[in-house]
């Protein structure tokens, strides 16, 4: 049975409904990340938010990017973050005091920023196409053309960047090697 063009009763198109759903999940998830008290739950909510954003990519016709989002972000970065949370969660850390004393001014400024963005970005004036429904799916072809065309250099350099980050990250996060300052201290601790 074909679905009706719009949602029954309220007359919203499926695309709009999907956008509102995914956007709502993303916003709610993000709010959960920044407001929630339990940091492990924050990490899990981050994964939810990133998932919703991947859904929006699919709506925008960028399925390939959604895949990358799931692989890199949810699969790697978020897991890394969860690991770091476990590693640094000492017993002494007070779980309740999650916020700065300046949380209220921070909220006001963020609200002001949100208002500025909403007014200026939502105000139109972009040379944008309007689609009926959602934008058509972008083939991997177009993305590949861009990535191996004008952005080839940036793409190659991004790999250098990752290499640099991994080398430095390993150095910083590793325990001192024998002979380095702090090594004996580390021995004692163990």
């Amino acid at each position: 049975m074909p679905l009706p063009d719009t949602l029954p009763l309220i007359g919203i198109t499926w695309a709009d409904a999907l956008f509102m759903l995914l956007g709502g999940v993303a916003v709610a998830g993000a709010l959960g990340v920044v407001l929630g008290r339990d940091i492990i739950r924050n990490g899990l909510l981050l994964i939810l938010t990133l998932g919703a954003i991947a859904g929006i990519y699919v709506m925008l016709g960028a399925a390939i990017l959604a895949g990358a989002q799931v692989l890199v972000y949810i699969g790697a970065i978020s897991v890394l973050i969860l690991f770091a949370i476990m590693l640094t969660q000492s017993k002494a850390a007070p779980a309740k005091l999650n916020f700065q004393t300046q949380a209220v001014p921070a909220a006001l400024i963020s609200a002001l920023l949100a208002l500025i963005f909403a007014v200026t970005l939502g105000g139109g004036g972009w040379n944008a196409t309007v689609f009926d429904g959602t934008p058509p799916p972008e083939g991997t072809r177009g993305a590949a053309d861009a990535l191996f065309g004008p952005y080839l250099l940036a793409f190659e350099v991004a790999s250098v960047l990752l290499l640099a980050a991994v080398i430095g990250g390993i150095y910083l996060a590793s325990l001192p090697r024998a002979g380095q300052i702090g090594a004996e201290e580390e021995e004692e601790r163990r």
Partner: protein
Amino acid sequence: MSLITALIRAASESGEPAAVLPEYAPLLLLLPLGGFLLTAAIGRRLGKLAHIVPLLAIVATWALSMSLAVPALLGDLGEAGASRELFTWIASGDLTFSMGIHVDALTGALLLVVTTVGALVHLYSVGYMSHDPGYWRFFAYLNLFMFSMLLLVLASNLLVVFAAWELVGLSSYLLIGFWYTKREPGLAAKKAFITNRVGDVGFALGLMGLVAVFGTLDIPTVLAGVAAGELTGTAATVIALLIFCGAVGKSAQFPLHVWLPDAMEGPTPVSALIHAATMVNAGVYLVARMSPLFAASPEAMLVVAAIGIFTAIFAASIAFTQTDIKRVLAFSTLSQLGYMFAALGVGAWVPAIFHLITHGFFKGLLFLGSGSVIHAVDGEQEMPKMGGLAKKIPITYATMLIGTIAIAGLPPLAGFWSKDEILGEAFKFGYTWVWLVGLVVAGATAFYMFRLMGLTFWGKSRIREDVHPHESPWTMTLPLILLAIPSIGIGVLLGFPVADGIIVHGLEPIFHTANEMLGHEHAKWQLFGIDGILMLASVTVASIGTAIGVRLFRSDNGDRIRAITARLQPLYVGSKGRWFFDDLNDLIFVRLGGRVAHAAWWFDRRIVDGAVNGVGALTSSGGRGLRQIQTGRVQNYALGIALGLAAMAIAYLVIGS
């Protein structure tokens, strides 16, 4: 042309005017620079022989500079002088700065003083500094200073002048603070540097103004532009006054004079070189060099004249009560520099430079002489602990007496000629108030200088028992004798006949533009006319000052002063007059004079000095307040960033719409 001019011209080899300086001209800069570098590199190893390279370098520089300065002063280099392009310093787009040197009569006048006194100070230092562990360092600094000063005088681009200006400040900082192990010299050096820096800000801003108007800092181009009327009105006044700020700092004029008396903490040769003959003259030179710019603004000229004459009387009144021999000379220098600025301000350009020359020689002599005195009494600088030194150190005494007569303005010694021309022109250009105050200062100068001589050399000895005064070695007395010669003769040589001497012929073309802009014309000088009367007035005032000074300080204690005046009274005045004379003396010089001098001293220490220190304190406390925003917490910082972002977005939305 006078006979003397003809004789000198015959003696000088270069007859033809040359538009291009000879190829050896850059050596004027390279010799002292080389001397500095060499001494800095190997001086320590040379030990007591460290003076050889710097001394030879400066003597050679002196010889070279004479070969340029003499023809320049005689007008043999042509009215515009001669130049030599060295290299282009910065060249890009609209901004080009070339490094060139330029010699004309004005440069020649400065070269004459700077290199002569410079060379003699080097020689003097061989003896004076011989026991100092930093012997080699001292000579290295001296050469560095000479290099900077010569660069300042020779440069044909104001940016280079500014660079040299700062370098001079730096090397004087090193020299004043030479005895850095003691606390006071260090503080004095810092104060000199920072006070100068205040003036330099004005100078820099003035240069920026010139760049904005003319797009270049090439001196001939700028001056030609001013002469063509491209800079007038308020803009000219502002720029001229900003540049004058630099001159005020470097030449220690009120209110930036505070550094100079303190700078006496440096070794005495340094005082002679920097604080009498060279660096303090840089401000006078700058104003004279930029004379068309000042002539373009009557307001600026007035300010220059007022500050100059105020400094002259203000410093003279302080010199009355000083007991430190070098400080008296320091205030005297302030006063004489004030004279020069007053002259510049009234448009008496040539007499100002003339006085710069004569003052350079006799003040250099006086400072070196005071160094010889201090040397003789084992480092004592307080005059009340001297006295009766005339017989013990006769060469020093004789030469200092010559210097004193010269500065007092008694004919025919050097100071008379230049001082008289300043006063005469001030009067003739209609600045009666400058003339009047100047006259008072002339009398006061004679008085306090003979007071210095009296307290130091005459009367009974008040020197500590264990000190045995002795004459200084020849390396110190020779420079004194060599400086005494120009102190006697340079005035006649350059200034006679009055208003028609070498100095006038040489310098007049330089200030031609400025004089034309001011509408100054020089009538023929008449001995039996207004000029003669003015000359008589200044001689009379100087004589009165001298007479009072000699009379009061021929001896050293109060009883004897009264006794002598009592014995001599029938010779001068009647009985009523005696009462009048005694009491007036008492009233003016002891009570009132003391009060005024003390008040001036207090004003200087508390208010002016306090203001200078206060600026420093204010900026520091401002900094401490600003430091509070650094809380050490990331989120406070981030909140600052977010606030900045929001503010900027709103600002752009407003500006852009």
